[in-house]
């Protein structure tokens, strides 16, 4: 049997066995769960090489699975982050209800994402896409909170995306007579003009829902914050990247063959830019860490979409690099929130403060991922952002640079809010008992945070697979000079050598930390956060002076005009309009036989009146 079938059978069988194994005890279930994630991943990386492909026939439909270098790059995000998140999830779910259902859907999501990357035909692509959507939908409503509002929103938008995609698939089948992606791409140029426009629009709608691009993003904040945090880390980290995966394929294949592609690129890039700006502004406003990170995810996906949509080699590389980095740091940050929520029972900045001494390792993980998110050298996010700016300037998108730069500067605000809200500020009596999260939660977080550091210093590690993947998308090897394990050259030939700069930064940092610590060490004392110079007043133990209400209020006042309109409200208006339409339709069917008789009579009369004019 082919290994690939074994992998999927292991996933499916493992998922069901794990689900059933609840009676055998928690530890057995945990081990089964981890094995179901790890064994197929191991088999995938050892036995399935890039360029692998297999055709087979199910019920008379030709299906084709295979993996190329581009899919392999995304498999790193899916399986790598999935493995870390799985370890985290085992500890996260300890003592929670419905573990079996959680594990089942977790595994199904991973399997479906891998299946999407493997699919070379539209039928299996669509089936895996729907498995992914459904498993994530169940996770969104898993807590049972707010199912009405959040669950239905996610469901409706997923359905819109799925129908758009299904429509595109049917159209493609009717025109090419095949479900193969290759045949679609090869015969795309021979389509009529309408179809050339319509099919990318439908496909981009389908992918855009998952990637949470601007008008289709309204489900994201609620869904991300409502799912269990162990799942949200792959929900935001990997699952949203499937939308990016699809978009990249649409942009690099179909839209690069037709002249209208330029318009598509421009529109989608600007949509990405607006997504970045408004996602950031709304993130600054949130007081709940989950909501903040959810909006921040929307904003970060905006950057990625900008890079992908611009589509020059450097921009594509920037977009993909940011996609990988975003998976790592946002996965970590959601894990951090999960750990804090588990230890304290809340994820609200206005309630939790001063955890730095209680949860130091969580703080380290959060700090490093936040620095990566903010894009500050030498950590990972900087390389991606830097390439993005370069590519935008070289490809003449000058205003987009300003938009992106505004958004990433404003991102510092919520970055600081996240760190300050949870970890800094006054230590409170209420949280004095809080302990560090269990090792099984802390270790994945810290390792992932370390990865951001590694990839920021040696971006070549991940730029090589990206370049390989881009080669399969039709980009030549010319961008080979853009990466090396340590040196990035930009398009104009200036260079930033990251290693000496890293050494310099570390050297200066260590020197001054030692200077500040050593100087007068004997006469330097630790005092508690209650011992502050607040006009000679001594805050009592239960008095908390931390500034957490109305954080960034002046900034929000300054940008208030931009935030007055919410897309949500327009959708609500549409929904209300539809509801009244349905209501009207319902009124026609009164359930009274007399009324129906009148309808029949009126219809006959109208028919008689128009009879002469119509039938002559």
């Amino acid at each position, binding site marked *: 049997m082919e290994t690939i079938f074994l992998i999927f059978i292991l996933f499916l069988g493992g998922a069901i066995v794990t689900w059933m194994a609840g009676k055998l005890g928690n530890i057995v279930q945990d081990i089964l769960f981890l094995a179901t994630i790890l064994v197929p991943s191991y088999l995938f990386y050892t036995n399935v090489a890039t360029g692998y492909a297999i055709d087979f026939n199910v019920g008379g439909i030709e299906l084709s699975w295979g993996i190329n270098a581009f899919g392999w790059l995304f498999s790193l995000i899916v399986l790598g982050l999935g493995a870390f998140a799985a370890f985290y999830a085992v500890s996260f779910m300890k003592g929670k209800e419905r573990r079996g259902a959680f594990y089942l859907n977790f595994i199904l999501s991973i399997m479906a994402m891998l299946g999407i990357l493997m699919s070379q035909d539209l039928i299996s692509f669509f089936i895996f896409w729907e498995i992914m959507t459904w498993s994530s939908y169940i996770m969104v409503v898993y807590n049972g909170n707010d199912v009405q509002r959040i669950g239905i929103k996610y469901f409706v938008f997923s359905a819109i995306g799925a129908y758009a995609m299904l429509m595109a698939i049917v159209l493609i089948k009717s025109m090419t007579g095949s479900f193969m992606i290759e045949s679609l791409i090869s015969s795309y140029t021979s389509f009529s003009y309408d179809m050339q426009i319509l099919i990318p629009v439908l496909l981009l709608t389908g992918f855009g829902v998952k990637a949470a691009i601007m008008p289709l993003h309204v489900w994201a904040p609620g869904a991300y914050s409502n799912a269990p945090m162990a799942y949200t880390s792959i929900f935001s980290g990997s699952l949203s990247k499937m939308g990016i995966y699809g978009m990249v394929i649409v942009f690099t294949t179909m839209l690069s063959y037709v002249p209208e592609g330029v318009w598509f690129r421009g529109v989608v890039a600007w949509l990405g830019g607006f997504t970045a700006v408004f996602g950031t502004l709304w993130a600054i406003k949130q007081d709940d860490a989950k909501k903040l990170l959810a909006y921040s995810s929307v904003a970060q996906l905006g950057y990625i979409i900008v890079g992908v949509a611009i589509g020059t080699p450097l921009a594509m590389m920037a977009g993909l690099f940011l996609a990988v980095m975003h998976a790592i740091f946002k996965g970590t940050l959601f894990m951090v929130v999960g750990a804090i929520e588990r230890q304290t029972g809340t994820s609200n900045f206005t309630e939790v403060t001063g955890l730095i001494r209680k949860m130091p390792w969580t703080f380290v993980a959060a700090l490093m991922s936040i620095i990566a998110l903010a894009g500050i050298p030498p950590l990972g996010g900087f390389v991606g952002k830097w390439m993005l700016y370069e590519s935008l300037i070289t490809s003449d998108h000058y205003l987009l640079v300003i938009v992106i730069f505004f958004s990433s500067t404003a991102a510092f605000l919520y970055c600081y809010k996240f760190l300050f809200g949870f970890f800094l500020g006054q230590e409170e009596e209420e949280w004095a008992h809080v302990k560090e999260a269990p090792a099984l939660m802390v270790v994945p977080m810290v390792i992932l945070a370390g990865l951001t550091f590694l990839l920021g210093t040696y971006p070549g590690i991940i730029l090589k697979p990206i370049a390989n993947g881009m080669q399969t998308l039709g980009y030549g090897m010319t961008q080979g000079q853009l990466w090396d394990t340590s040196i990035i050259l930009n398009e104009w030939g200036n260079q930033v050598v990251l290693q000496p700069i890293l050494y310099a930064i570390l050297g200066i940092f260590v020197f001054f930390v030692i200077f500040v610590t050593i100087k007068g060490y004997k*006469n330097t*004392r630790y*005092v*508690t956060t*209650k*011992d502050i*110079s607040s*006009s*000679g*007043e*001594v805050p*009592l133990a239960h008095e908390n002076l931390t500034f957490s209400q109305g954080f960034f209020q002046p900034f929000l006042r300054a940008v208030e005009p931009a935030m007055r309109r919410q897309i949500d409200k327009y959708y609500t208006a549409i929904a209300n309009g539809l509801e009244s339409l349905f209501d009207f339709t319902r009124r026609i069917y009164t359930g009274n036989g007399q009324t129906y008789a009148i309808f029949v009579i009126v219809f006959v009369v109208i028919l008689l009146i128009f009879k002469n004019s119509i039938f002559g």
Partner: protein
Amino acid sequence: MINDKNSQKIVDFIQNWARKHSIWVLAYGTGCGAIEIPPTMTSRYDAERLGVRGAATPRQADVLLITGYLTTKTLKRVIRVYEQMQDPKYVIGFGSCTINGGMYYDSYNTIKVLDKYLPVDVYINGCMPRPEAVLSGFAKLQELIAQGKANGAQKYKDNLDWYRENQKKIIPNWVMPEYNW
């Protein structure tokens, strides 16, 4: 060599010179005396030319300037502020009220002798002292610092029990953190 007595003398001289010419004042405006600080600082008398400059918080300040009477309620805050200041630190008592109670000698809630509660390095008398007097007070403090005689903080450390006893007599409900110098 660095611990040599003569080189220590030179270091002390330089440090005292710096301390003398850079006096960051935390003006604790307790009474009516606070009104004399603005003319002292602004263009008429310009204390900044002597290196005297306002400090925003006790952590950064060198001199605690107590301008006027101290009620028992304020004394608690003043002690707190003094203990939050970093060494070397000095106290200037300003006006008759800090010296002997001044016109509040018979009030039921103002203390009369500041130096029983905090180690005062320099008193400026007068009700109110004019800005010239304030400047001369600063000049006196500078002189003391240069000679190394402005050692009120040391006195406070050495006699902390005595000071605490006096302070707790006024403030029976003592909730302050320990003094860590």
